[in-house]
């Protein structure tokens, strides 16, 4: 195969586990106890339907493919997240790095930008270490702040208001005079001092070069900002596009709030509206700017939700955790659009066709990035490890490879 490998990856992480039935695997013909009485809508791809709450994505289904047969065994948030992010089951004495840290590390060999190769908008997943055993250098830049506010303050990169370039320069001039402790007698201390100074130079290059402007969303036309939606997810994805343009290899947009144990349908409808608009605008904009072919976009949560609705109190129309069968979206970067991989049974409870294991899904992303998932995982302490466990029987998503 001669196609070019993807340059960047954008992960849209639906933290909490969104329902497969109200996203990409609707079951309009199932009993109301399963579909809540809701419908599917056609997309611009013949024969492909998605849930009625995703009308914008329905208009551009040719840009992405959906997998309806994701499956694994972990029903708790942390262990399922670990599995979906690392391709491995928890335990065994190692804490492995997440896909973002691995790809960022591999791609950083060729990435020349000043921003870290792994950026997270806007909050880290938390209670789960993305870097595993890779160490501090692989750690993502977590932006904090709110891209939908007047000024998107990325703590540390965007200076506090009131600091002008001149007053910043004055400070550094004074610092150069006052930072006078300087070891001469031990090469260990000399190397520590050098690392401190080098890190300072790298940091200044970020704040004073073009990198900081990436986060200045006011440079975007008002019309473009509205197209994504004036929501946190909308403006986060707009920032993600700017980060792709800048060249950052791995960008994660964490979208919390999908853990709808109670009053699932109210939550799901609200979350779907904002997310649908933002993701559709993002994919369309990426396509228009010619970035989609070289950028992989993937979206899913750590699992799906229990197909049978809990109508009774205290759930009042809720869905629990469900990992046996759920859906994922993948687009761009050498993946075909407009396809459906696998299928679930009539209620969305079990995989009916072509199961896709987490390591198959992640392995496909690695392959499209030009990274061999069966190659060695660097820095695994003393232990020989491959990037991912061997692919499952049905294997990676070759049917989607362009």
């Amino acid at each position, binding site marked *: 195969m001669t196609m070019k490998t993807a340059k960047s990856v954008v992960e849209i992480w639906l933290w909490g586990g969104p329902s497969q039935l109200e996203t990409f695997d609707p079951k309009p013909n199932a009993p109301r106890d399963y579909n809540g009485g809701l419908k599917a809508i056609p997309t611009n791809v013949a024969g492909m339907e998605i849930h009625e709450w995703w009308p914008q994505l329905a208009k551009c289904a040719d840009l992405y493919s959906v997998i309806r047969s994701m499956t694994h065994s972990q029903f708790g948030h*942390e*262990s399922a997240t*670990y599995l979906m992010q690392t391709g491995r089951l*928890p*335990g*065994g*004495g190692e*804490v492995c790095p997440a896909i973002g840290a691995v790809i960022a590390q591999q791609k950083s060999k060729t990435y020349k930008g000043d921003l*870290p190769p792994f950026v997270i908008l806007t909050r*880290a997943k*938390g*209670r*789960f*270490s993305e870097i595993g*055993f890779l160490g*501090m*250098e692989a*750690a993502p*830049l977590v932006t*904090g702040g709110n891209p939908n506010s007047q000024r998107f303050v990325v*703590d*540390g990169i*965007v*200076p*506090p208001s009131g*600091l002008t370039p001149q*007053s910043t*320069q*004055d*400070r*550094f001039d*004074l*610092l*150069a*005079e*006052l*930072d*006078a*402790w*300087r*070891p*001469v*007698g*031990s*090469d*260990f*201390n000399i190397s*520590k*001092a050098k690392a*401190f*100074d*080098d*890190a*300072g*130079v790298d*940091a200044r290059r970020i*704040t004073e070069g073009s990198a900081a402007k990436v986060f200045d969303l006011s440079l975007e036309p008002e019309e473009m900002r509205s197209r994504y939606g004036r929501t946190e997810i909308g403006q986060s994805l707009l920032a993600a596009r700017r980060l792709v343009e800048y060249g950052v290899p791995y960008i994660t947009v964490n979208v919390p709030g999908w853990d709808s144990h109670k009053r699932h349908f109210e939550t799901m409808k609200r979350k779907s509206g904002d997310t649908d608009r933002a993701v559709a605008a993002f994919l369309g904009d990426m396509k228009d700017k010619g970035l989609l072919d070289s950028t992989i976009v993937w979206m899913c949560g750590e699992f799906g939700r229990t197909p049978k609705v809990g109508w009774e109190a205290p759930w009042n129309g809720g869905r629990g955790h469900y990992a046996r069968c759920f859906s994922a979206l993948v687009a761009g970067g050498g993946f075909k659009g407009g396809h459906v991989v696998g299928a679930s049974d009539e209620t969305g409870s079990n995989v009916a066709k072509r199961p896709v294991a987490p390591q198959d899904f992640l392995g496909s992303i690695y392959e499209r990035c030009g990274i061999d998932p069966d190659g060695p995982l660097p820095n695994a*302490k*003393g*232990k020989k490890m491959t990037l991912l466990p061997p692919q499952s029987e049905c294997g990676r998503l070759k049917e989607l490879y362009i």
Partner: protein
Amino acid sequence: MDLNEMKLTRRTFLGGTAAWTILPNNLTAAPNNKTKKPDKNLGTAIWEKPDGSATDSVMVRRLYLDLAGRIPTREEAQAYVYSANPNKLESLMESLLASKDFTDYWTMRFCDVLRVKSEFPINLWPNAVYVYHARIRRFVEQDESWDDFGRALLTSQGSNFRDAEVNFFRATNRRDPNGWAEATAQTFLGIPPSELTASQRANLSVFFANVKIKNSREWKEEIVYVDGDDLRDRLCERLFADKRREVSAAFLKLVHGWIFGTCGTPRKNSEELHLKNMLRKIVMSKEYSQGSISGGFPVRQLDAEVLDDIFCSLGGDTRNYQSPAPEPFTFLPPDRRTICVEDGSITNGFLTLFGRPARDTGLPDERGTEVTAKQRLYLFNSGKLHQQLNRIVASSENHNNAGNPTSSNRTPFPKRVDDIYWKLLSREPSPRERQLIVNVWQKSKATKTKRANPPNLLRDVAWCLINTKEFLFRI
């Protein structure tokens, strides 16, 4: 003690081009590699005596950071520096060893090693974290010997909520005889799992063959029990009698590593198994009093937790540690210092950024010790840090030289500079430093720029000081 016992393997100076001070507009000279002598024009006398040993102001900060997990207050630093007592090092050491701060800080260190966290991937569960933390705290506070403590852990039975020691068997990545063999080797013999041979693992796991864990009727309670012969007493005999030298060497390596990092290894094993005695020997050794400029005392970056406590206490901030799991949510009291946070699962972005260990493996290298560009971005530009610096500057208004609040008279500008130096660096500014800052002030007044107003310039000074190596490193 024999001072050679703790002798560091001194590394030789390798020279090199050393183009390492590359901040723009740096007016100071590069170090002279040929003579290996510190540049006297920079006033190195602040940090090092002519014989290469550390000055009092370096020692007081070093002692507080190593033993109490904090920097001294202005008053504490001055009391030490101005004291004429020839035994002041020893007396400060003893008072710190007896302090609550010592217990808090060293408990944190041992909780790192024993992987005290409620959730993934250790999953102790909050109630068990709190009892286990309290038990480890008792070990530090009462200076229980390492083998007695080890025996209590290794032979424990009962409930994870009531018999704290059984959490040793739960705070592992694998709860089976092989996992416990690895935890034992790592904790008491200093052998990480990656270096443990198959036969070593097998030899150790035999002793745990009959150890089992079962659930009780209480939510998340687990009972560690022995089904059959309990072979663990024999394991303790093997470890703490037959292999006593190995155990004490591993313990020394652990404690020594916390002070000296990876630099140098302790030369001779004294079979000391009491933490406080071991620290006494380290602190009173000649190596510990070396300077870090030409003396070669290895620097280390301040722990994330300690740094957070410094910014919060000087900046008048409260913490708001909380945990969303399990419901109902856990909220720690706002005055809880970060080094006292029991649960490794309760964290925040600052602590992650500055290298707090995840407590996933308990290995010493889990703690981040390299300065990163992201850390320096925070120190340069963080909005939260700027608010804290503003409060430090505001508090310098009401101090005269003796440290007493004076509300009637405004504190003169140079005294306010002194106050900020004492608070952040535990020393007074050198004449050169004081002059530099006063010159900037005079010039700003003449040109009527922003820094003519003292708080504006003092804010810049405080910002500069927390961005120095002297601040971020324990030198």
